[in-house]
């Protein structure tokens, strides 16, 4: 009998606020240890938390984006445990009444088309960091991160494979960046996932005992860890064993999960409402105001791209992978005469280089009007595609954005396509005369020899000839 994998994901998205969730200290990454820790973050005696409204706004944006319920009244609770990088001895979180309840996210790509429901999303503060390496026999504590606002997003256990779980994480990652509540930087820990994994016999209505896997700081690790963990559990069950509920840690170097603490060792967090904070009460007006600032969401934009720009579902999906790219495409498409070409340029030239540079579309040195201009110049025959790509490349590699427009550059550098047929014919004749060997080869049946001749003509025209026209002319002359 086959096994079914059941996965639920808990995501911690660091909210893109300037200051911390309960203090005025900055949240910037990478500052010297403890330089961004205020009296509140250090938990000096007598200090009190004050809720940062910007973090609440992020949570509301998220709730609206996933179609969840924004609870008009939610409650902050204390999660009590001792750890040196948890300064108060408790984390302020939300427990019984989270700010967002329910909602869903759509996974789509390849054969996958699935709506995953969310359980909840709640606001909480991050802990600091324990630094074990740099201090001989001691542990350093850096409280810069303490109090950083997090949105913990909990999915229902509806994911059925490691790949689905990874797709969920990617979609969530795209969404939080799309709506501008999280920078999504996984290296810096801005977006972290834990996975709850269990397995059961196919058709079994009951869930198996789950293990929580922590430390999954890339989509690849998430997928590997879940695949490993599911295999581990299946092996145990098939060997007649039982799964112990526990927290496990993924070791990416060995590609395995290891037990971190068992259920017996689990903390009793003694949650109770934080008496230092009033319940978070939200008004309809406040929620509606935030709704008005939400951008068009990826699902809607994808449908619109298919409808309005005639893109394939797959292309529309690629172009709505992140908001900057989608906006870039739309700017190109609206200025270009050829929308299919716009999609090809953005998915080809632009996206390839962005991926290599690990940059987002809004950081591109070649701006949408330039790409549109290149497309239009090719479309009306003013330049050939090779020239267009060369110009794009030069602009991409320029130390800074060029002041000169694409049009002007084509004129100034005399890059316009050779349209005078007699000039092209003369160049073809010259090349044929100068390359008897290639001509002979072509006539002997080596079709590839033609490419060499086309190249020679293009070179002689300084790249300005229309390659198709050259090809045509050569064939006619050689076969004629």
């Amino acid at each position, binding site marked *: 009998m086959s096994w079914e994998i059941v996965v639920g994901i808990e995501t911690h998205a660091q909210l893109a606020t300037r200051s911390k969730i309960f203090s005025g200290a900055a949240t910037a990454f990478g500052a010297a240890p403890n330089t961004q820790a205020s009296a509140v973050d250090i*938990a*000096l005696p007598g200090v009190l938390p004050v809720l940062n409204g910007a973090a609440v706004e992020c949570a509301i944006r998220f709730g609206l984006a996933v179609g969840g319920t924004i609870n008009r009244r939610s409650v902050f609770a204390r999660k009590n445990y001792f750890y040196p990088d948890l*300064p108060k001895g408790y984390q302020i979180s939300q427990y019984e009444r989270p700010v967002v309840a329910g909602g869903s996210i759509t996974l789509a790509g390849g054969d996958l088309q699935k709506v995953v429901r969310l359980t909840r999303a709640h606001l909480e503060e991050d802990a600091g960091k324990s630094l074990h390496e740099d201090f001989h026999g001691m542990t350093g504590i850096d409280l810069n991160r303490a109090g950083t606002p997090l949105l913990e997003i909990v999915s229902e256990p509806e994911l059925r494979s490691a790949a689905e779980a990874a797709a969920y994480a990617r979609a969530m990652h795209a969404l939080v960046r799309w709506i501008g509540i999280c920078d999504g930087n996984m290296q810096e820990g801005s977006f972290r996932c834990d996975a709850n994994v269990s397995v059961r016999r196919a058709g079994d209505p009951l869930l198996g005992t789950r293990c929580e896997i922590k430390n999954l700081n890339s989509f690849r690790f998430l997928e590997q860890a879940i695949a490993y963990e599911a295999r581990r559990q299946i092996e145990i069950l098939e060997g007649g064993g039982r799964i112990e509920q526990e927290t496990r840690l993924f070791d990416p170097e060995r590609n395995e999960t290891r037990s971190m603490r068992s259920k017996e060792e689990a903390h009793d967090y003694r949650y*109770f409402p934080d008496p230092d904070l009033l319940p978070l009460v939200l008004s309809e007006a406040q929620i509606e105001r935030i709704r008005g600032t939400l951008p068009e969401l990826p699902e809607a934009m994808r449908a619109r791209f298919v409808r309005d720009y005639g893109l394939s579902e797959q292309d529309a999906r690629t172009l709505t992978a992140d908001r900057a790219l989608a906006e870039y495409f739309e700017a190109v498409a609206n200025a270009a005469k050829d929308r299919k070409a716009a999609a090809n340029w953005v998915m080809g030239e632009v996206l390839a280089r962005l991926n290599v540079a690990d940059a987002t579309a809004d950081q591109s040195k070649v701006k949408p009007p330039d790409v549109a201009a290149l497309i239009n110049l090719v479309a009306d025959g003013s330049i050939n595609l090779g020239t267009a790509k060369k110009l794009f490349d030069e602009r991409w590699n320029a130390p800074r954005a060029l002041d000169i427009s694409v049009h002007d550059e084509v004129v100034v550098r005399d890059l316009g396509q050779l349209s005078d047929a007699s000039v092209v014919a003369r160049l073809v004749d010259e090349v044929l005369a100068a390359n008897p060997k290639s001509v002979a080869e072509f006539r002997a049946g080596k079709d590839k020899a033609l490419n060499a001749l086309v190249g020679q003509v293009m070179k002689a025209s300084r790249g300005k000839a229309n390659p198709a026209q050259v090809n045509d002319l050569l064939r006619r002359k050689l076969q004629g």
Partner: protein
Amino acid sequence: MLNSTLSELAGALARRSISSVELTRLCLERIARLNGALNAFITVDAERSLREAGAADERRAAGRAGSLTGIPLAHKDIYCTRGMLTTCGSRMLANFVSPYDAHVVERFAAAGTVLLGKTNMDEFAMGSSNETSHFGPAKNPWDTARVPGGSSGGSAAAVAARLAPAATGTDTGGSIRQPAAFTGVCGLKPTYGVVSRYGLIAFASSLDQGGPIAKSAEDLALLMNVMGGHDARDSTSLERAAEDYTRELKAPLAGLRIGLPREYFGAGIAPAVLARVREAIAWFEARGARLVELELPNSRLAVPVYYVIAPAEASSNLSRFDGVRYGHRTRDYADLADMYCRTRAEGFGAEVKRRILIGTYVLSHGYYDAYYLQAQKVRRLIARDFAEAFGRCELIMGPTAPSTAFALGANRDDPVQMYLNDIFTIPAPLAGLPALSIPCGFDAAGLPVGLQLTGNHFTEARLLGAAHRYQQETDWHRRVPAATPL
């Protein structure tokens, strides 16, 4: 001069019949002479006090003095003060110097008052006798073999012995009012949210409230004018317009309806306490107040409810004292858990540990609903009793404590008996209500008796007005302990 009220002292300073430096020196001399016996102060910094007094005199000379500029006063050692020890009566913080000032400390500094020092208290404000202080108990100036009450016992003893014209305190279950009653001074616990808790070391956050301890109701009003008001750093601080707490000092008593809860006059109250309180109530009746018999049926549950909620909050609030960042850390330890255990075992006293254990227990998985949640429900019932009562009267009167000051050590081994001492002071903070205690006479042993006035939310001014009228015609509040003559 030492027996003068704040408005009298303010007048003398304004007339330049005394300077702040002279007045501060008088207090410091008296502290130097009497504090050895009373142990009212944990920290005194004469140099700093005189420097602040000098600055206050300069401010007055420059014409920028406020009404309390130059008045010396003491802060309970639970308020964080920059550049001076803030111990909270605990070994845990015996060497702790706060890098910032509490809101209340800031307010008084801005008003130009002079800080005489930090007063003794029960450790982390947990106690009703001052005996849980790591620095030894403060003594009652009326009889130094007796407790001054707690937890603000040092502040009350300091004001009673005229070491300081006034002091701050905090009240969680009676920590201002009970010591005020035991030492024959006046103390007000304001409505929850009126005085910012920022910089006040938390015991039980939903109950803690700062307030003044002074010689008269009028003095309490003047101090409240400085302490009260919104502070954005405390999310539970109420956004209300600034109030003048002296505005009802002259309000007539005629027609005032005084509620007398049957539960406050029952068994277990010392006869002399009951007699003095009834005499005071009769005084009000004689001046036109109407007495209204009423019931607060759920208030009998106040003590058990309090001893679930307050320890629950305390167990969490005191988690930050872990030896990692500041405060006491044990010398030798094997690992992290050992460091925590030894640090907290050494740093906290027995009563604090008892409450942390109780609090941890009632919040634990499987017990939360039965204890913490149930206590919160009963807390609402207690508040509802008061809300109904205030439909029938403007203020409620009764004894502040069931007895006068007890002997040092009398309740040391019986925590429940100790807890029952707060039976009349605990209901008001559970309902967030303002309440004050004023002296209303003495028992046969010459120990002061306190009369408690409780009002509806935000009726501090009315409570102070009624108390002030009483003090216009009585002199209990002007009496000075024989052991500490002027």
